């Protein structure tokens, strides 16, 4: 048996079209990144436990102190927490990409006759799955602590649609971060200082009207706020205005720039 197992050229690859292989390679690497969620305690905790903790903490710590007008605080809060968790969740791609680039495994992928940029797709798509799970968990917890949405099925669908689009955009942005970073620790640190101000200087936890005018100017016009306001409007019926369109435009704009940029950086990084 030994002889046969090691016999050079004893096995032939399958023949398929180039397009088939793009999907096949991507699927194999998506499965890989999804397996990471289940196999790494770190990830599992951040997917399941962190959203529960955030929801409960904000609901009960800030719930009494912040005036959100006619909307109850928990109803106000859910959209903010959903978007913040999605943003943090999407930075997992940065870690995953940096990890792959810094370890030898990227060289393995690149020595195979595969589409190696599918590594990026794998991480980004698994972020979508991870965030969907977190979103569902958070909504269930929210319902248990008094969240009373008035969204109809179509509006729920739109909530998930906007969240996924937002996640997709931030994940590709994270992929770029992961490609540029010199170390995994730098990625952790950088995603923290990028995401924290963006999510807190928004209407996630307090209405923007209560902020200092300068901060307010930023908070009211940045993409995270538009995304939160759109989701809040769909969930609890606050006025939606142009937030929906602006949120979608931002996401599409980010995606249109980041996908080609990330792919280009990946190629450059890997052919030094």
């Amino acid at each position, binding site marked *: *048996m*030994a*002889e046969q*197992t*090691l*016999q*050079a*050229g*004893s*096995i032939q*690859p*399958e023949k*398929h079209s180039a397009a088939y*292989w793009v999907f*096949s*390679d991507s699927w*194999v690497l998506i*499965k*890989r990144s999804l*397996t*990471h969620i289940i*196999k*790494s305690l770190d990830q599992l905790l951040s997917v399941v436990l962190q959203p529960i903790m955030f929801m409960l903490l904000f609901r009960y710590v800030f719930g009494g102190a912040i005036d959100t007008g006619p909307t109850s605080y928990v109803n106000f809060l859910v959209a903010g927490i959903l978007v913040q968790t999605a943003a943090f969740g999407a930075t997992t791609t940065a870690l995953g990409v940096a990890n792959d680039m810094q*370890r*030898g*495994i*990227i*060289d*393995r*992928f*690149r*020595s*195979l*006759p*595969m589409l190696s940029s599918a590594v990026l797709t794998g991480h980004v798509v698994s972020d979508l799955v991870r965030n969907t799970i977190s979103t569902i968990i958070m909504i269930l917890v929210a319902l248990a602590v008094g969240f009373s949405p008035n969204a109809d099925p179509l509006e729920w669908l739109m909530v998930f649609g906007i969240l996924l689009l937002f996640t997709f955009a931030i994940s590709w942005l994270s992929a770029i971060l992961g490609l540029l970073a010199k170390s995994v620790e730098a990625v952790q640190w950088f995603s923290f200082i990028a995401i924290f101000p963006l999510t807190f200087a928004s209407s996630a936890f307090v209405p923007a009207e209560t902020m200092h005018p300068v901060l307010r100017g930023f908070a009211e016009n940045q993409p995270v706020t538009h995304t939160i306001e759109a989701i809040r409007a769909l969930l609890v019926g606050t006025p939606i205005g142009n937030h929906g369109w602006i949120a979608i435009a931002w996401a599409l704009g980010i995606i249109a720039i980041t996908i080609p940029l990330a792919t280009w950086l990946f190629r450059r990084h*890997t*052919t*030094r």
Partner: protein
Amino acid sequence: MPKNYAIVAKGLKKSYKKLEVLKGIDLRVEQGTILALLGPNGAGKTTTVKILSTLLAADDGQVTIHGYDLHKEPDGVRSVIGLTGQYAAVDEYLTGRENLEMMGRLYRLSQADAKRRSEELLQQFDLIDAAGRSVKTYSGGMRRRLDLAISLIAAPPIIFLDEPTTGLDPRSRIAMWEIIKQLVGAGATILLTTQYLDEADLLADKIAVIDGGKVIAEGTADELKQHVGNERLELTIAKGSNFQKAQKVVDGEALQVDSKRRLLSIAMTGGVKHLQEILNKLQAAGIEVDGLSLHKPTLDDVFLQLTGHQATKDDVAEEDKK
């Protein structure tokens, strides 16, 4: 009959900024043979392997692998090579089996073939008991074996092994040698790099000695040994005689001088006559010789002769850190 070369590289050059790492490397590996790229740490071995396996673009030079032009048909090259890099390229979170099956699919094997090959290789590399465990829990030797198994999943005709035994315990090292021998036995062409002279001597059909980004000698182990003469004469100078003076007498002929142990080693180029000459010269100078022995030259001697410095084993230990 013209020889069939699986790997031909001509004039490979590579610089990192101002640092010239490869200064024109020429290599040829005959089909079904092992070429060992032998050199100390920093010689340019990994850089060469990375270029040949499409991971790094050379600044200059031509490479043909299995008939594919490296520059024009990198995917063709990728379909016929297996690479085991200097550091294990495995997914820590996946199990050994998942790693193999995933790479099988990425090598474009059918699902059934990927599964079948994975089981065969797990068996072959003594990993079947650990197949369902995360690679995180594997020892260094197991990782190396898995890494090699992965590069063999599609049974590639050409295999690159970058320091396959560095950092392995002696038992795993011998096991790895056995596997490498089986691979060529089964028809593969192998280019392996090593800092171990005994390893190159034992495994390789041809050895290319590389230092400072250049191939400084090439040939079979025997041919290289001819460089330092057929045999090496080792003289112990008596305590009563002046060692410095003895050194002067053999002037330039000494390959190695060990003043502590009062040893002089000299390459024997002219047989018995040469030996007589040396002894006569020493006697004329009034130097007494305590001991005399003849040694078959080792690759260590070759290395010393060619590079002017010893192939230090300390470098190896430094590389072991993961």
